[in-house]
């Protein structure tokens, strides 16, 4: 959109992007993680599943320089698998689950929220009831129950989380749509004869992008955390898949003597979630139209 704008606008927007260190740093960090995850076979020095039982529990150099092995940059786990390779492959699982879950819940929540906000009345009553019902369900409990019945796998985790995390999308989109609906440009669009789908797609949705980006980033981070939690409890993705949550779970037995094993995947989760949240906030600040 900025490409078609007149000169001063582009300059202002570029200024808003470059003047926001949080946005730059998070974009770089997230970009690095995404590239690493997509091209994992190129970056990972070893097969994340290959067990070299002679080289078990080798700490990384910055933990114990004497025991460290230069072949394993971040050490090895209790089965002699290269920790760096597992972390790199683990980023794939986290990002995939985060992104797909956000997509599923975003589509459900946005559709419900926009419908409730625009049409009001009965539609609003029904949507509000569904949101209340959903909010009364504890996410982790329901996810545990469903995964326990259906079995843990990537697809099940995405579906369960996607069907549980749409509430914030619905609530935020509903109130944002209600504000937009009363604006004159929506009335003007109806007066020029635009159909309801057209009004929703070309007048309402484009003006929902800012809050949508924030909620989407928050929900993606939330989904990544929940996947880690489910995997930690043994109900998410199953071993030997290298999920970060699973790595934390596997490391907890060695927490006393090899605390770095739990620290590294924990730190990875923390950095990823932080980067996504900062990016969402930054994008919102940079894309909001001036004067609004």
């Amino acid at each position, binding site marked *: *959109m900025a490409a*078609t*704008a*007149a000169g*001063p*606008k582009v300059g202002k927007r570029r200024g808003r992007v470059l003047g926001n260190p949080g946005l730059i740093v998070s974009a770089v960090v997230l970009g690095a993680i995404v590239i690493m995850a997509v091209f994992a076979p190129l970056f990972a020095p070893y097969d994340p599943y290959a067990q070299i039982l002679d080289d078990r529990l080798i700490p990384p150099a910055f933990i114990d320089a004497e025991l460290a092995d230069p072949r394993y940059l971040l050490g090895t786990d209790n089965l002699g698998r290269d920790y760096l390779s597992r972390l790199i492959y683990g980023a794939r699982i986290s990002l995939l689950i985060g992104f797909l879950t956000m997509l599923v819940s975003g589509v459900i929540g946005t559709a419900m929220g926009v419908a409730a906000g625009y049409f009001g009345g009965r539609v609003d009553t029904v949507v509000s009831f569904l949101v209340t019902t959903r909010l009364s369900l504890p996410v982790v409990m329901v996810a545990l129950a469903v995964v326990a019945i259906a079995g843990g796998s990537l697809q099940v985790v995405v579906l369960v989380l996607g069907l549980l995390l749409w509430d914030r999308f619905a609530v935020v989109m509903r109130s944002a749509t209600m504000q937009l609906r009363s*604006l*004159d*440009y929506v*009335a*003007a*669009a*109806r*007066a*020029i*004869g*635009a*159909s309801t789908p*057209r009004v929703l797609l070309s*007048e309402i949705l*484009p*003006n929902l992008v800012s809050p949508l980006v924030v909620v989407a980033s928050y929900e993606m981070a939330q989904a990544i955390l929940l996947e880690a939690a489910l995997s930690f409890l043994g109900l998410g993705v199953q071993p030997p898949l290298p999920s970060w949550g699973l790595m934390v779970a596997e490391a907890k037995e060695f927490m006393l003597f090899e605390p770095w094993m739990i620290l590294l995947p924990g730190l990875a989760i923390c950095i990823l979630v932080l980067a996504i949240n900062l990016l969402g906030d930054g994008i919102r600040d940079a894309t909001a*139209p*001036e*004067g*609004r």
Partner: protein
Amino acid sequence: MTPILEIRGVTKRYSVRRGMFEPKRSLMAVAGVSATLPRGEVLGLVGESGCGKSTLAKMVLGLETPTEGEILVDGRPVASLGRLERARLVQPVFQDPYSSLNPRRTVAAIVGQPLDVHGEGTAPERRTRVAEMLALVGLAERHAAAYPNQLSGGQRQRVAIARALILRPSLVVCDEPTSALDVSVQAQILNLLAELQAKLGLSYLFISHNLAVVYLIATRVAVMYLGRLVEVGQAETVLTAPDHPYTQALLSAVPTPKPGRGLPGAPLKGSFPNPLDPPPGCPFHPRCPVAQDVCATTPPALESKQAGSTVACHFAG
């Protein structure tokens, strides 16, 4: 010739519930309004905030449906027109140009949107028509690529006018088109509207609470109070020799531009009544300086009092 706009006994009721356990009550936003607007003229609709002016405008635009009565545009009932057909007959210009333009579209996209919706012409044809329209409302070519937030209030209102006129409607509903603008810009927009009316043979339903603005542009004036018309007539007559005590009070409250005169005193006692609880009889009687017992019981009908003027008052004139 059929009048361009004919409002026949239109009533709009909303049901309102103040709290969860309160009973529903009905609010009469517009109560039995009838008016006609001959082709090529401007009907000024004046009244206080909350008197139902904008509700009436929304019904003329087909954005709301009347509870009772019907509205004919060009002899055809608005309610029975399809949305595309209706859009070709009547278009709005809204009060606040800051909320009437989508902030995410360029000026060219906003002005060209009606052509888009109606599937008129090819892309180059649309571009030419948008450029012609922008020139007609006094915007430069370079404004076409601008976003609304890069324009001033007056320029935005010109964009809104261009969007309203690109389909060549016969009736334009101007809902306080100048009241959100600076005084100097108000005059420019008014002149533009008057100019376009003459050039394109438009008719306006012009809503305002600014009597000076209405005096300048309107040929006929309708004064509204609490959802009812209290006085209708030629602009000249109504605004210089009003018959209804409410119109008289409105006129005496207009500030004079002469220095040293001070503010005009408020000629009316009390305040605007709660539309949920309208007074019985004549809705104006609690504030009326000439009210008598009959006013509290019998609502007056609109009756001809002068040449061309109709007034709803027992003691008018």
